[in-house]
């Protein structure tokens, strides 16, 4: 357990000094500041205004950029350490493979989650200063949603990192996966629906396997409980799962997926040549 914490702290310190972390923090911190500066709290969409409006916009931004930022920053973890010989050196120390791998994952999770949750918290504090009403329920759920999405893509990033031999391949594969997941949010699925060749429920099921889509739908569900903005797909989702069932699904599914990928990554890591 001691080595696990030591590896986590060491990796946290290493990554904290890395440029990607600075850029990553600036993107999310900057996004919230920009939204305030642009006066998004004054605008109204579907009856939402003030801080709720800002949080909804923030979460929509996260849908688009959070997965790829997480993938880019974590996909280099194992393969990058391998290429730079850091792995050779650290694994010559009495550190178990589990302590190394899970220590890295935990540190990366905090590194990813701290800036996005701080930005969220900053928005709430700013809202309080400006005497806006605070949507605690939405903020809490969004924090949870961001946490599970981070965990999901962190697991995927670590899995890819153990899979590839070169960082470039890892980055390429990450971008490809991200693009496929984005395309399967709307573009391809709408195309399939229009062709009327595949049952609607199958298309909805495919979309619900996509963690970005699950995240997006979960985010929509809070301010649009009947998912009217999603059209006929809402019937399939809500008829099968119900409001609370689907909210639970949006938390548990990415979490499980993250665990699955993490374990696959760990098995892949410990079963092959380490360096």
């Amino acid at each position, binding site marked *: 357990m001691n080595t696990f914490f*030591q590896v986590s702290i*060491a990796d946290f310190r*290493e990554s904290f000094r890395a440029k990607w972390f600075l850029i990553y923090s600036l993107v999310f911190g900057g996004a919230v500041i920009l939204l305030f500066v642009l006066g998004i709290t004054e605008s109204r969409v579907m009856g939402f205004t003030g801080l709720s409006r800002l949080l909804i916009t923030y979460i929509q931004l996260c849908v688009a950029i959070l997965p790829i930022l997480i993938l880019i920053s974590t996909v280099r973890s194992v393969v990058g350490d391998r290429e730079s*010989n850091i792995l*050779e*050196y650290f694994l010559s*120390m009495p550190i178990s493979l589990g302590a190394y791998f899970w220590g890295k994952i935990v540190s990366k999770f905090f590194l990813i989650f701290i800036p996005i949750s701080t930005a969220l918290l900053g928005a709430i504090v700013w809202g309080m200063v400006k005497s806006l009403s605070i949507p605690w329920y939405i903020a809490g759920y969004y924090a949870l949603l961001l946490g599970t999405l981070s965990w999901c893509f962190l697991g995927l990033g670590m899995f890819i990192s153990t899979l590839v031999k070169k960082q470039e391949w890892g980055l390429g594969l990450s971008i490809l996966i991200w693009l496929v997941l984005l395309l399967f949010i709307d573009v391809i699925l709408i195309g399939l629906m229009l062709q009327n060749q595949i049952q609607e429920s199958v298309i909805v099921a495919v979309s619900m396997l996509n963690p970005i889509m699950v995240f997006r739908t979960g985010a929509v569900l809070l301010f649009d409980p009947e998912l009217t903005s999603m059209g006929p797909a809402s019937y399939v989702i809500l008829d099968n799962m119900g409001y609370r069932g689907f909210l639970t699904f949006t938390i548990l599914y990415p979490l499980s997926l993250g665990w699955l990928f993490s374990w696959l990554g760990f098995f892949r890591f410990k079963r*092959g*040549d*380490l360096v």
Partner: protein
Amino acid sequence: MIKINSLTKKFGKIPVLDNISLTVKKGDRIALIGQNGAGKTTLIRIILGQYLFNGELTVFDKNPRHHRVEILDRIGFVPQLPPPIQMNVGELVKFSASISRKSGIDAIYQKATELGLDIEKNVKKPFQKLSGGMKQKLLIALALAKQPDILIMDEPAANLDPQGRQAFFLQLIRSMENTTMLLSSHRVDEIINLINRIVEIDYGRVVQDEQIDRSHFADKMLKCQITLTQNHEAAIRMLNDWNFKNKNGGRKFEGGFIGAERLRFLTSISHFANHIQELNIS
């Protein structure tokens, strides 16, 4: 301490180590030599439990892959190139001390001082910003502070300039006693004073395994006469370092050395092969 029997390691279909058998006993200080790509680093990584392999290998009678932590707690390792660690020196020292059971911050400071590195002065400096020599000294101090039963060094002076290499090895000799050691190097002359056995690997096979101090001439004084083609300054300086005396102010030099040093001597003069007219060792 290390038993290797019929060990083979392939990358794809290419065997990098081909049916190697080797035993390392307590007190062995082995120079693992061979050309680039001979398989030295691969063998070291297998001993450290970092590569899978076919055949048998035990370190302290245990499988290095299944008992990694136990085994690595008793091994000190210095890599070929210092890894680009972002931590500062103080953090790295603390990390290393906390990971290894027998290591401690004081012991690391002491070993570093013996090697000529003042950690206190550089404690806030990022490891990356240290000079090549300082990095290497720190890594060696971290490895020695563990009081390892086996010290493994992979080309430890690869990124040092010639003067730095010489100073580094001199300091290393002073700071270590009775350590079992596996030292990979291209150049035997540099490490000859550190070792008592040479294992040469070529194309993945052990082609030479010789105890140096047990050789026939090891404790005999050898007499040597050299005639240079011209008064080459560097060659004369080298001969003076070996306490050779110039005969009659000409190009002829006479001196001697003990048998155990003959490999080091021959390597030293090999740099001046073009300037040697006559050489006689008896």
